[in-house]
């Protein structure tokens, strides 16, 4: 019984929870900022990379190879190592402004590099799932390769990949706390500071709560989109 009380006190002490709220909330705003910026950048870069990977013809081969090398490297490398490369490596290079960015900016760069690799694959799967006959129909009407991509292939591809894409964004949102290892002051790091000072752990619960509160709606929204699509596809089958 004593042990249980100890656990409850260490993790679920309401007083300590309330005390930690303002600090951790201040940190979480940094997480939110990184999420929004990184997600916007990832959406654009990943689509560009996916298009490059699908370019036809031998002349585009070097570009395709580069795109593949990029996704292989950043999907295969643990995000914490990418964070070290960016957060410690770039400042160490002494390359003018690139070496003098804020911790938060390095954090955003890290997240963008890694998640662009994941989301590229998501987009690519979407682009490949659009049947070749759609492209043939577009080209046969005299539309150019790029017009067929722009008006026919990509709009259909993006619609199909929204659920897996949101799934990756849930991962990105949580990983905004990993970049605290390169010195970003955010929810997890402030929770840790609070915990060390106070000698208990409710501050972690505060941080966790914030993350969960933004993840759950996104997860439910994703479920909803999947359900809607399934219903539509079933309706079409008849």
């Amino acid at each position: 019984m004593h042990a249980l009380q100890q656990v409850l006190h260490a993790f679920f002490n309401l007083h300590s929870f309330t005390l930690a709220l303002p600090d951790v909330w201040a940190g979480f705003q940094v997480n939110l900022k990184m999420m929004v910026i990184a997600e916007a950048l990832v959406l654009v870069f990943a689509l560009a990379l996916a298009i490059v990977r699908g370019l036809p013809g031998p002349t585009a081969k070097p570009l395709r190879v580069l795109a593949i090398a990029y996704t292989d490297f950043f999907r295969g490398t643990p995000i914490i190592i990418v964070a070290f490369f960016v957060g410690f490596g770039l400042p160490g290079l002494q390359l003018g402004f690139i070496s003098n960015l804020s911790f938060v900016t390095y954090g955003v760069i890290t997240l963008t590099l890694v998640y662009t690799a994941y989301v590229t694959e998501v987009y690519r799967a979407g682009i490949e799932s659009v049947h070749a006959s759609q492209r043939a129909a577009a080209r046969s009407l005299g539309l150019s390769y790029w017009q067929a991509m722009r008006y026919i292939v990509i709009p259909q591809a993006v619609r199909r990949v929204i659920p897996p894409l949101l799934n990756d964004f849930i991962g990105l949102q949580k990983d905004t706390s990993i970049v605290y290892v390169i010195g970003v002051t955010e929810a997890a790091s402030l929770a840790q500071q609070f915990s060390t000072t106070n000698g208990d752990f409710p501050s972690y619960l505060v941080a966790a709560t914030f993350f969960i509160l933004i993840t759950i709606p996104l997860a439910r929204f994703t479920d909803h989109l999947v359900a809607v699509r399934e219903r539509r596809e079933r309706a079409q089958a008849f």
Partner: protein
Amino acid sequence: MNATVDDNDAGVRNAAFVDVRGVSKWFGDLQVLNRVDVDVSEHNVVCLIGASGSGKSTLLRCLNMLEQVQEGEIIVDGQLLTHGKVDVNAVRKKIGIVFQAYNLFPHMTVLENVTLAPRKARGIDRQEAESRARLLLRRIGLEAKADEFPDRLSGGQQQRVAIVRALAMEPKLMLLDEITSALDPQLVSEVLQLVRELAESGMTMIVATHEMGFAREVADKVCFLDAGRILEEGPPEQILSEPREPRTREFLSRVLEAEKLA
């Protein structure tokens, strides 16, 4: 040797609007077209008949440059398509193709399907493109469906929209690739009626079809394809009633058999 054929040259060589000469094509080891010769005069309708896999679709796709031929040459409207630098998009603007599976764009309304290519490939402004599209849709009795998405239309309606989508580019040649094969029997006639009207309006067409009655009615010439070769060609009455080749007779009797069963 010049890689291109100018109008004068083509005029001397052949007056045909479409001139296919000795075209061969392979998919890997499989030869799908074997020294095919076809010519089509302007305002004429040529029907391609033959079993599935005989090369009808491939020939049409080569004419639209969706496939490349490895041997022979194709000339359409005086322009050589098979050698040298060819502006593929420019060629396709004057050659419309309609596929068996309609291939409408599912994320666009009927009106958007019909106006996309005129707007983007020909640079016609939206208002102009839409009023022309509505006119075409009215002609086929589908003006009321202009703002619907394709999945709300029947197969026959979708295929008619696909034809109109190709017509909106004001092509000089239409290629129809078994456009009724995916349709329920009761929807076939509405599509054929539209093609009939096109033929009457003088549209030059090459039609791959399994509808022998239709071929007899609209075709100026019927070509029977067998294993990638044109085995026999001639006026529809002759090919369909008194074929010379045993393979043609065999094919026709099988088709008739199937029609009786249907």
